[in-house]
């Protein structure tokens, strides 16, 4: 199950390899008084995984999310995406790898206010040799798949919370990432919209893709097939549901 250390820096997941792997990762803040946000954490996200990362606030969930999403680098240890050690990459390469392999969904939706829904989804396809026409088509299809075809030219302020989160979802999946990484994706939604968004997440499950939800909502956590619990910067349990009904 371990990634072959000899494997070249290929970004394509091979069956059996971890999509994303943390190995002995620590993240320390502060210089004079070091505070361990994460301490010696190892975790493998596998293709087909639907993982929830749970824990009380201050348990290191957000730090974990930053590291899994390649938005942050560990103080020590290794982070690998499909076998590639990202801690040695320069910003441009790491940014490209992040854009190509990870799709983000945030609690506060984080749409760019001056762009319409289509423009927001297109943002994820910029700077990667996609022709404007194709970029537009792909973004539109991603929106249409989530039932937002008629909202394509609405700005975020003209959309409801549920719609905004679905736009964010479209933005996350339009690049067909290896992993969708979500931070409390239902935290700002009412029950009906939350259910709808969770259904979408369940639908994202695919044999070659992983979905990771960071949450403190047990209901949300229960929809996942694997539950990683954290406390005080460490993983205290990593359970797989035997069957999902």
């Amino acid at each position, binding site marked *: 199950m371990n990634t072959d250390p000899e494997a070249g820096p290929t970004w394509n997941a091979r069956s059996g390899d971890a999509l994303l792997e943390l190995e002995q990762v620590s993240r320390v803040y502060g210089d004079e008084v070091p505070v361990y946000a994460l301490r010696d954490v190892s975790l493998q996200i596998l293709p087909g995984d639907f993982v929830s990362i749970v824990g009380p606030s201050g348990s290191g969930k957000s730090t974990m999310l930053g590291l899994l999403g390649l938005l942050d680098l560990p103080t020590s240890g290794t982070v690998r995406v499909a076998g590639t050690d990202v801690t040695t990459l320069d910003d441009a390469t790491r*940014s490209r790898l992040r854009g190509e392999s990870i799709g983000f969904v945030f609690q506060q939706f984080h749409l760019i206010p001056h*762009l319409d829904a289509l423009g927001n989804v297109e943002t994820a396809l910029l700077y990667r040799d996609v022709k*404007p026409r194709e970029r537009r088509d792909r973004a539109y299809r991603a929106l249409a798949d989530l039932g937002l075809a008629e909202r394509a030219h609405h700005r975020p302020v003209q959309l409801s919370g549920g719609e905004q989160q679905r736009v964010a979802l479209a933005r996350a999946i339009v690049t067909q990432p290896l992993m969708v990484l979500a931070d409390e994706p239902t935290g700002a939604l009412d029950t009906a919209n939350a259910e709808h968004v969770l259904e979408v997440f369940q639908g994202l499950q695919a044999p070659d893709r992983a979905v990771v939800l960071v949450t403190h909502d047990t209901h949300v956590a229960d929809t996942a097939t694997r539950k990683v619990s954290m406390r005080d910067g460490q993983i205290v349990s990593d359970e797989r549901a035997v069957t999902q009904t």
Partner: protein
Amino acid sequence: MSTARDLLGVAWAGLTARRIRTLLIMLGPIVGVAAMVAAVGLTESAKGDLKQRLAALGTNLIIAQAGGTFGSQNPTFPADAVRRVAAVPTVTSASATTNLSSVIATPIEGGSDYYQSFPVPVRAADPALPSVLEVPVIDGRWLNATDEQLHVPAAVLGAGLAKQYGYLDGEVRTIRLNDTDFGVVGVLGSVALDPDLDNAVFITQWSAKHVFDTDGKPNQLYVRSQPNATQATADAIPTAINLGGPDQVSTKVPTDVLQAASQADKTLQQTALFAGLLALAVGGLGIANVMSISVIQRSSEIGIRRAVGHSRSKIGFQFLLESLFVGVLGGLLGALVGIGIVYLVSSVANWVVVISYHRIPVWMTLALAVSVAAGLYPSIKAARLEPLETLRLG
């Protein structure tokens, strides 16, 4: 290529999303460039009519005058002075005239007393004179080779004299020079560069020699030079004419005075230019200021872009391009506003519009440079922003 296109699109979208603010920070380059265009345009246009006259006259006419040694009366050039001057390589054309001070013209019979007190200058001229002066013959014709060869007693009037004389177009009139009647065959147009000619009567060189018994040597030459060699040619003519001999030759370029008068007020121009530069510099500070605040306001956008895979340098370039757009558009609008001001004021003040179009790109480039320099710090700040801090995770 596609990266550049995407960057341009993103920067443009960022600017157009906040139009009022974009317009406000654009005011710096707009005011700066407009002030400089207007400053130079207005000071030049105030002298525009003089410049226009100069352009029409041509600044390459040289008048050479025989000076003579001390005490000599009626100094003259050698008879072949035109040929000698024409040998100077930068001379394009030349014409000789002779002042006949012994000849009294009496245009109107009853006014002989008056004309003795205020004599009408009589000049012998060659057929080339109008073309060298670039002055048209407004009535009839000029003296020609046939007049010379057939000894025709023909005379041409200067424009001022013709008016005073009451000469009508096509009229058959004669003018009495000493005791001989000459037929008026034409009227020479007004000569702005040598107004003396306007009141003169012109006759052929044959008439000067044989009717009035003079030696026929010229004492005044009109010379056109190549456009950029006027002064050098004027300096060369005395030697060309007298070959180092004792006779004095003085030359003058009649447009020199006009040219000096047509120079714009440099002090005023520089003061206004300085004001424009100041506006540009203050505008640059404004851009830096507003862009810095904008980076903070848009930190969430920056975080999102980083999350979807835009690198630090892309973010930096995005903001740098925004200030570049501000510089380009501000400079362009400023140039238009400046040109508009010049046209507006000139039309009110009845000036001839003069705009230094060749200098506008320099000012626009300056505005662009200031804008980009002003955008540098905010762009670096944007690039350095940590996405984790702006996205408020967890």
